[in-house]
Every structure is written in structure tokens, then in C-alpha cells.
């Protein structure tokens, strides 16, 4: 499964000698996962999408469950799992998936699968330079493979599966290749990570990453409620207070403590509690250094790591400096939906409305990646959706993304990639609004766009006449799919 990884398949035979550490028979725990997936087609949103078959790894954990990467099973239509030393192929289903942390838990329908398996336990964060073994089914053969390496670095990394989330990740120098994804990284008989991403050989060599156990434990705890809520976020940006003049002007002492809140997202956790210009002095009683780091478990880590380990509804306590006085505030944590516009989206079909041969789609990362848009306004609406709070007027940015040429829209081609502002008298804030507007009976549908752009006019009778022709000519079997919008 190379789909969302930076990994590019390169056919080097890895040191694939199955060298099983003493005390653990990995063959009783490792699982080979073959997933058949359908990748959504954002350019032809009514199409079911192209099929891919990918192989990844997983391993048995307590409760007769299999842990793997989300990207191994994303968009899957059919999954089979295999054990070493067992010729049978067992169908499996995704029970929980966390796209923001690239982890998933699978259930095997046949309970017999777990006979003779042994669930693996979890360790802590391994120390730098300590050796680990990586198990999986990377390219180069069909059987179980093991590679060894040492821990190179522990740092925040972007998880490429969602492309927007950053969490703790551990870098190793063991070869991690397509097919390793979801496999356990072991040290002293315990899982210390799940192999998940790396670089292709022409970018960097011997750089692989695993998801460390704090992230795994958080995922397993989150789903123990029977539902995956996902990561929560302070939804603020902050500025390091390293400049002496700035510290003095804010009335702060020269104690190298505190960062300044530079923005607070309107839809995020902190909007009611924090404001721009507040100086954060401590977080849950950990002093925040002027570069934004805190001491935690003897390590210097960035402040957000404190929040990383929390759950929806948890609180975090800050001592802040506001108007030159100290205050204590509490933030109740939740997610921040506007960010998701820049995240890869999986497991549900592209949303769209087709009317008069005009295709309307909400702006999203998948959309931008598919169309490779260079339109300046659209790029701005995408890049600054969160920072400039574009979501206040446009919770969804509805784009006239495509035109299926037909006499009814013969003079509209120059309007492609314009952003819909209004249809007749209705302000368009979401895709549902578009569907509603076209469902209204009206002689004309006048579509107004953002900016100094002429409107598009569609006459209902002309659209009705064109309907079957367009559906037939372009083999469209679904005229809209509006369910599942991100926003409220």
C-alpha cells in the first residue's frame, strides 16, 4: 500500500532473513493484510473509482483485534488477512479507523482465526541509538520479512496519510518499504511502534518512521468508548517570545518563560477562553519556555504534546498573562473542523451536484490534488481558509468545478473554477444549499459567483430538456451526492 506514503516502490531485496528474537514467536502475531480498495475519482465524482490491491502488515493485539495503519485499509471494499503457517485467507472488516493518526483496528469475522495467535504487548518510547526489529511484508518477496535498525530521532512529523496532522513520530534507520506499513517495530519482545512511512531512496536513504506507543495508546483508549473521536486541538497559533523588547513591552520579566497567543480559531476549543495577545505561562502547571517547549517526563518537548495525549471533552489549564496580570483559565478540548479542508479525505464518495451539465463540488484537498488548480482566487480560498476564517461566510467553498459540454451550457466555459456565492436569492454556504436551490422550482436559475464575475443563467426548461441527453452522453448514473459534509 504505497498510496499515501512518500515511499516509492524500489525493488531492493531487504535483509529479509527471518531472525526471530528469543522469547517471542512473531509468527503467532504477525498478519498479512490484502486490501482491495476503490480510490475516489474527484474529477468524475459519480464514478465508483479505480481499483487497487495493496498488501500491508498488521499484528494481533488483545481482545482478538488486529492493529494496522489506516492507509492500509482506507477506501477498502474487501480485506483478507493471513497468518504465517496457515494457508487459509480470512475476510476482515475495519472496526475503527483514525485517519488523523494513521491507525486502524480490524475485526476478523471467523473467530477461529485467533486460535494459536498471541497478542503483542506495548512498550514505551525507545531510547535513541537502541536497536529495534521491523516486521512486515515489504516488496522483494511474499513471506515475512524482518529488518533491523536503531532509533535515529524522536520528533514531531507530519503524518502523510491525512497530510495535515502532526504527531510524535520515531525515525529509524531500518529499511521500511511498501508492505511494511502496519507492521510492528519490536524491542525486547514488546511493540514500540507501528512502521508507517518513509522516503523514497532518491530523497533520503535509511529514513523510516514508526508511530510510537503514546500515539497508539491514545488511539486504543479513544476507541475504547466504542467510537473514535480523534485528536483534539487548542486551535491557536502562538509566537515565541524571544525578543527582549517585546517581553518588556508586554511587562514580562526576563525569565525566558511564556509564548504569546497570536491567533485563536473561531471554531476551535479556545475561542471562549483565550485571546490574541495573551501570554501562556504554564500548561497544566508545566512552565512554558519562551520557545514554546515544556519539560515532560524528563524530555524537552513542544507544548502541544501535552494536548496530544488528551481526549475530546478533557480540559487543559493555563496560567496566562493578560493585561499585565496573571490569570488561570481552563480550555475544554475539541477538534477544529475548518482544518479538515486541507486533510486527505477517505472512505466516502466525493460530494457533488450536477445541474445543466455544471458540476459543483466543495473545495477540499482531494479536489485541489485532482484538478491541480492554479486559479488565484481558488488557491487563496484553499490556503487561507483557516487563517482568514473564510469558513465564516463559506463553511464549504462551492466551486463550479467542471462543465460537461452541452448546448445548455455552451457559453459558460469561461466560468469554470469560479466560486458560487448565490443562486437566485439564496446565499450558498454548503453543498446542500446548492442542491436545495436547484430543487426549487424557478423559471431561471441565476448563479452568482464571488468577485466581479458575470452570473451564469440557466433556464429551467432548457436544463430539463438537456438532462437525459447529458446523463446519457456522459454516462452519468448519479446526479448528486451531498451527504456527509464536514461542517455543521
Amino acid at each position, binding site marked *: 500500500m504505497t498510496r499515501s506514503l512518500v515511499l516509492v516502490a524500489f525493488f531492493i531485496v531487504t535483509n529479509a532473513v527471518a531472525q526471530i528474537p528469543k522469547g517471542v514467536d512473531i509468527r503467532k502475531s504477525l498478519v498479512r493484510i490484502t486490501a482491495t480498495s476503490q480510490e475516489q475519482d474527484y474529477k468524475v465524482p459519480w464514478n465508483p473509482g479505480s481499483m487497487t490491491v495493496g498488501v500491508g502488515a498488521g499484528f494481533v493485539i488483545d481482545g482478538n483485534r488486529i492493529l494496522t495503519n489506516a492507509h492500509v485499509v482506507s477506501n477498502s471494499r474487501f480485506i483478507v488477512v493471513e497468518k504465517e503457517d496457515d494457508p487459509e485467507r480470512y475476510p476482515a472488516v475495519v472496526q475503527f479507523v483514525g485517519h488523523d493518526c494513521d491507525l486502524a483496528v480490524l475485526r476478523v469475522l471467523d473467530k477461529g482465526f485467533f486460535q494459536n495467535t498471541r497478542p503483542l504487548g506495548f512498550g514505551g518510547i525507545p531510547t535513541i541509538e537502541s536497536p529495534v526489529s521491523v516486521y512486515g511484508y515489504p516488496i522483494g518477496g511474499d513471506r515475512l520479512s524482518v529488518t533491523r535498525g536503531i532509533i535515529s530521532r524522536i520528533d514531531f512529523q507530519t503524518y502523510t496519510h491525512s497530510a495535515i496532522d502532526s504527531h510524535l513520530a520515531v525515525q529509524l534507520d531500518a529499511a521500511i518499504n511498501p508492505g511494511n506499513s502496519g507492521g510492528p517495530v519490536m524491542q525486547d519482545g514488546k511493540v514500540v511502534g507501528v512502521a508507517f512511512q518513509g522516503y523514497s531512496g532518491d530523497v533520503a536513504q535509511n529514513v523510516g518512521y514508526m508511530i510510537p506507543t503514546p500515539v497508539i495508546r491514545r488511539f486504543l483508549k479513544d476507541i475504547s468508548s466504542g467510537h473514535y473521536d480523534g485528536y483534539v486541538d487548542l486551535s491557536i*497559533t502562538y*509566537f*515565541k*517570545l*524571544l*525578543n*527582549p*523588547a*517585546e517581553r*518588556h*513591552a*508586554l511587562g514580562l520579566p526576563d525569565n525566558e518563560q511564556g509564548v*504569546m497567543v*497570536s*491567533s485563536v480559531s473561531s471554531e476551535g476549543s479556545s475561542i471562549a477562553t483565550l485571546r*490574541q*495577545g495573551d501570554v501562556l505561562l504554564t500548561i497544566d502547571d508545566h512552565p512554558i519556555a519562551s520557545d514554546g517547549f515544556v519539560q515532560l517526563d524528563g524530555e524537552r518537548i513542544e507544548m502541544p504534546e501535552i494536548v496530544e495525549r488528551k481526549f475530546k471533552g478533557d480540559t487543559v489549564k493555563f496560567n496566562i498573562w493578560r493585561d499585565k496580570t496573571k490569570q488561570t483559565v481552563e480550555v475544554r478540548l475539541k477538534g477544529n473542523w475548518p482544518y479538515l479542508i486541507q486533510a486527505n479525505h477517505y472512505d466516502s464518495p466525493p460530494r457533488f451536484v450536477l445541474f445543466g451539465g455544471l458540476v459543483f463540488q466543495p473545495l477540499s484537498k482531494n479536489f485541489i490534488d485532482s484538478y491541480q488548480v*492554479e486559479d*488565484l*482566487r481558488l*488557491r*487563496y480560498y484553499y*490556503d*487561507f481558509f483557516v*487563517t*482568514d476564517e473564510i469558513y465564516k461566510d463559506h463553511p464549504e467553498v462551492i466551486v463550479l468545478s467542471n462543465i460537461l459540454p452541452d448546448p*445548455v451550457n*455552451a*457559453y*459558460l466555459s*469561461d466560468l469554470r473554477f469560479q466560486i458560487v456565492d448565490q443562486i437566485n436569492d439564496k446565499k450558498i454556504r454548503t453543498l446542500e444549499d446548492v442542491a436545495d436551490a436547484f430543487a426549487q422550482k424557478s423559471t*431561471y436559475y*441565476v448563479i452568482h459567483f464571488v*468577485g*466581479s*464575475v*458575470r*452570473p*451564469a*443563467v*440557466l*433556464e429551467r426548461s*432548457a436544463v430539463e430538456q438537456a438532462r437525459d441527453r447529458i446523463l446519457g452522453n456522459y454516462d452519468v448514473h448519479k446526479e448528486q451526492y451531498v451527504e456527509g459534509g464536514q461542517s455543521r
Partner: protein
Amino acid sequence: MRSLLAIALSFALLHSVIAAPEPTPKEEPVPPEQKGSVVRVNSTNQSYDFLRPWSKEAPFSRRGLGVLIDSRKILVTAELVENSDYIELERADSGEKSVATVQVIDYEANLATLSSPDPKFLEGMQPLQTTTDVKTGDDLSVLQLETNGTPVSTRALVTSVEVGKYALEDSGYLMFRMSCPLQFRENSFTLPIVKENRLAAFLMRYDSRSQTVDAISSPVIEHFLVEAQHQPYKGFPRAGIGFSPTRDPQLRKYMKLQDSDGGVYINQVDQNGPAAKAGVKQGDVLVAIGDKQVDPDGNYLHPIYGKLSITHLTTTEAYCGQHVTMTVIRNGERKQLNVELFRRSSEDYVIEPYTIGKPPRFYILGGLVFQELTRQYLREWGTNWLKDAPQRLVYYDRFQSDLFPEKRKIVFLTQILPAQDTVGYEQLNNLVVTKLNGREILSLDDFAEAVKNPIDGYHKIEFEEDPHEIYLDAKQVEEDAAQLEKTYSLPALQRL
């Protein structure tokens, strides 16, 4: 920047044409009357560096031909002499040289007149008259000079007459397109094109692959020369509207337009522009300008040139200060609006579309460099600036008339010159300033004023985006100023 590169490129190609075996272009000797009308123009130009606004870029020279218009004036393209430090005229017959200065320059129309302080220098030369009688299919002659001063002319076939882009991307005027196999020679940057001993056009761009010439047309030259007689120079007017076609029958029906109406949909009206002042509104359908009917694509019928964009009517046929009647259909009713045309100069824009021939303004405060946003600054990112320059600023530039209806400039922090005062600020750049010391900043002049009033000894600088606010110690900044100037060899800390 972009047009420079385009020209540099076309010359590179021209060189390769010479290297490759090519059929010799049809060249003819020049009739004696024209010999005495052209003069070599060598200009040493130096543009300002908008990323280091305190210095100029390396000088370079351009060589072209100028045409004697009356006994004292030489006409050239503006591009040839833009940002010039030194201009030299050279007589083709004698090789005699003289300095020249720019009299009037119009970057939009891409034309300039030069004069020589030595009244005798141009003596004996014949001024060229202009002709606007040029039609598609006409044979014109492109004039060049051999190294030894012998004039040669190359035949050019007029392939189209249309409104097209001039040197700046925002300005479109009437252009003659020609097909012509031209050899590269010295002084080929600007070349006169004549018809029957009269000046018909000025070569502006040449593409050696397709052998096509884009030339400044004589109606534009004539307009320029008429205006150039008046001080101050008023330039070419603009109606201040944007329009789109009304071919779509559904749109026509909805707007209750008759087929005979023609007309274009006005989708943009410049704030305080000529059309806006006359009451033209977005959503109006413009059906006539004066007695000229507007077709659904925005063209009218010109007696000589045929179908032409209506832009020509309001930019070139009419002069600044003149009135034209615009007939619009609004809510199914015809209205006649009297529009007084005037020019919108680059300075009148929030973000200047071009800044040529004048230095960029800047203000350096404690190592923080502030400038007013101009397109010239964004162009420093190279030919791909639309994609590579900071996206927010590019967006502001492109949609400035929608985004900033009021008269103002965008003051922004362009870069940091790291010093003691900027510790912790090193990563900041391209941030739009909203306030300084509590004062709203709508120009660099506002900024300079606000610097005088620090709050409790600190300069509080507020930005539109993260980090939203930073501070400088006002006294410290003052004390460090001389050192900063010295460290970075800055000629000055501000230019307003």
C-alpha cells in the same frame, strides 16, 4: 520584468536564426526620404531592485532606432528608455553622437519622445509623418540600419489589426500584427515600420520562430503625440469597466435583451472611475458608445480596421477630458450616461501595477524593512511570480479593486536585516501592517508619522496575520540606527 525577459528571449532566438541557414529575407534599399528620418538610440538603463529597495540593479544597455517626428523630437518605445541613466543618439549618416533626454514617456502606450539639447544635431534630417491607413493585407516596411549606417528595409505583411497587450499586462491598445522575416541587427530593440514614407507602426515584439511582429499602431502613436503637446501629459483614458460577452441566449432572455440590442454585460466598474462617476453599474448591459453599436462580444465596426474591441473607442479614439455617451440597458430599460473619460495612473491604484522610472519607497525601522506593495515587487519572483510570490500578496494584487475599494496603499514588512533589535523576529517576512503605535497605516507616510509616537517607549507593530503584534524598543532603535546603516552599508534608512 516579464516583458524584459520576453524580449531577451526573442533576441536569443534571433541570434540562432542567424546561425542557422535561413532563406535570406527580402530586403530592399530604402528610399532616400526615409534615410534621413531614423537615428540610432543607445540607452543605458538601470532598474530599481525591489527586494533591496535602497539599491539599483546592474546597468544594461538597449539599442534601438528612433524616428524624427518634428524638427526637435525623436519617437521611440518607452521600453527602450525606461529607467534610463543615459541616452545617446547617433546619426546614421555621420556616426555623430549626442546625448538626449526623455521629454514625455508613457509606459502604458509604450511610447516616449526624446530631445537633444543640441539644436544642430538633428539638422538636415527629415521628420516622418504618420499614417493610420493600414489594412490587413497591406505590405509595410520595417526599417533597420546596417552597422555601417546603410538603411535596409524588410517587407512586412499586415495579418491582423486588433486590440492587444502592450508592454504592461494591464494595458491593451490597438496593435498591428505582421508577418515578417527579420534579421537581427544592432539597434533592433525598437524599429520603425513605414507605409509609403509615413510612419505606420513601431515594432514592439518579434517572435523569430513564427516570424511575427507585434507593433504599436499609428492611431496609438498619433494619440500619444497629440497629448504630448500639452503639459502636463494626460495620457490615455480608460472607461474603468470590465465586461463579458452576452452571446448566451439564456442570459439574453433572462435580461430581456432583444437580438438586435447586442451589448456586453458589465461585470466590473472601477470605484471612482469614469464609468462609475457617470452612474454605470455592475450588471448593466452596454449596447452603444456614442453612435457605435456594441456587439455581443464587445466589438464595434471601425471604418478602416473592421471589427474592433470597444476598448479602442474609450482609450485611443477619445482623449482625456472628452465625453462619450454610454447607452446601457438596466432592468430592461435603456439609459444614456454621459461619461467623462480620464486616465487612471499607476499611482492611483492601491497596488501599483507598474513602478518604472521612480525608486521604490521604503522605511527601515530597527532592521525591519517596510515597503508599499507594488506589482514590481511581486515580479521580483521571476516569470512565474503569480505562482512563486507570496500567495496572499499576489491575491491582493489581482483582486485589488474588489478587496480595497478605498484609496490606500498596502504597507508590509518585506524582510528583516538581522540585528540586536530583531532577535526572535528573523523568520518574519511579507506581513501586511495594519497599525503602528495604534495608528492605522494606509501608506508609508502614515508609517513615518506613527514612528514619532511610540507607546510607553515601545513601537507596537500590528500585522494582519500571525504573529499579529511585535514590539521594538524605540530608544534602542534610535541608538542602533547608525550602526545598522553601517553594518549593512545602507545609503539611507528610508525613502519616502
